[in-house]
């Protein structure tokens, strides 16, 4: 009764908090991947973008600039200096694991998620 916390007690408290914190990181750490897309140029990571921050990204590939639009959790190519515009025709992607690429300009976009809907796309 009324005993002061000793150094050891404090240490124990700190350790207990660390356990809670580490368990949190272990079990909920995956959520940082939600709602993001990875843009790569020639297979190399260029930028990870938040799909809930609307905006336009200009990505420079060997042929020139490809423009990507992010809007309300989705992303698409809106212009690209390639011949056949297959990347643009593919339209919006939004499901975790989906991928869209402008192969001639070597730019790819894939959606990240903690539990991907797909591991890869057959296209």
């Amino acid at each position, binding site marked *: 009764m009324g005993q002061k916390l000793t150094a050891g007690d404090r240490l*124990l408290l700190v350790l207990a908090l660390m356990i809670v914190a580490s368990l949190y990181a272990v079990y909920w750490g995956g959520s940082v991947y939600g709602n993001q897309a990875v843009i790569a140029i*020639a297979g190399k990571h260029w930028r990870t973008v938040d799909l809930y921050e609307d905006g336009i990204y200009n990505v420079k590939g060997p042929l020139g600039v490809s423009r990507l639009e992010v809007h309300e959790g989705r992303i698409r190519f809106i212009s690209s200096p390639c011949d*056949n515009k*297959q990347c643009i025709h593919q339209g919006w992607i939004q499901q975790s694991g989906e*991928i869209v690429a402008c192969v001639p300009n070597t730019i790819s976009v894939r959606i990240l998620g903690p539990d991907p*809907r*797909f*591991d*890869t796309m057959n296209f």
Partner: protein
Amino acid sequence: MLDKTASVNLAATRCVWRGLVIVSCLLLWLLLLMSCSRPPGVYYEQFMGFGTLIEVKIWGVDEKTGRPAVAAITDDINYMHETWHAWHPGGLSRINELLPTGETFTISPSIIPLIRRGTELAELSGNRFNPAIGQLIKLWGFASDEFPKGPPPAADAIQKLVEQKPVMRDLVLDGVQLKTTNPAVRLDFGAFAKGYAVDLAIEHLKELGITNAIVNAGGNLRTIGKHGERAWRVGIRNPRGEGVLGSVDTFADESIVTSGDYERYFEYQGKRYHHIIDPQSGHPAQGVTSVTVFDSQAVRADAASTAIFVAGVDAWYEVAKAMGVGGVMLVAADGVIHMTPNLKERIYFDIKPIPHIIYSDPLN
């Protein structure tokens, strides 16, 4: 004085006890971290090869194992792409220059298995898959890094090439010596080289001790093993419109290859001309939008997806059976899906309403 010593001793004992408690807590914490820590997860890399995007996913390895494994297959694929390319300077383009002479010449041994396998698969498909029609592909402008813009080639030019009926059987292979009895033969391995390369890449990964992986070369993919406790999941692109047609959980070692009219094409005066040329008509095959083939080998699935596309709605089942593939899903131009019954329980359709599906007889 004595009292003080005793309390110091008591404090020391307490300290030791607390130390022990702290140390055991620390151990417990480490143990928890180790047992609950995230699974090793997926090692992912992508690169450009074979004129497409290549994705490699390996489950359960860290970067130390994953990176050199992917580097090894990247080297393989770059080498194969150069050697088997139909129009870049290299192994195959030299062969195509020498074939019309009718003379016998020596070829690179690395190309022999491709010629053999290509011939087998072409024969089984009734030459609907035909790697000997290099001249036709070139005439249509699809043997180029640039996309053709039209107009389509003149009808008599197409007719002239079709009448010469180049087939793989026209090649005479003796050791490393090659010649053709039909001067119209030119090789274009575009309809099965990616599948062949994916098979070799998977074999290489297996040799490196990797048992759970996906190699996907622009829609020509093969999976081995699983993603941890669950199967690998593959999404199949909607051939018309956006998004995903459906998804499938793959078997432990399975290839899925799609050929679609949306992959390479040009539009001229409102008509679409795609890259899957029917060797008999000399024109892009009609009536089909995409064909997805399931098989144990990516090379057979790749060749069969082209052959079945060419065969069309009426003849696809016979060709699938003759080639011995595992399963087929064909999306016809009218939107109807033709499918082998073994895929019924496996494909989960994403699009609404679910398309009209016509099931064939079982393949075996």
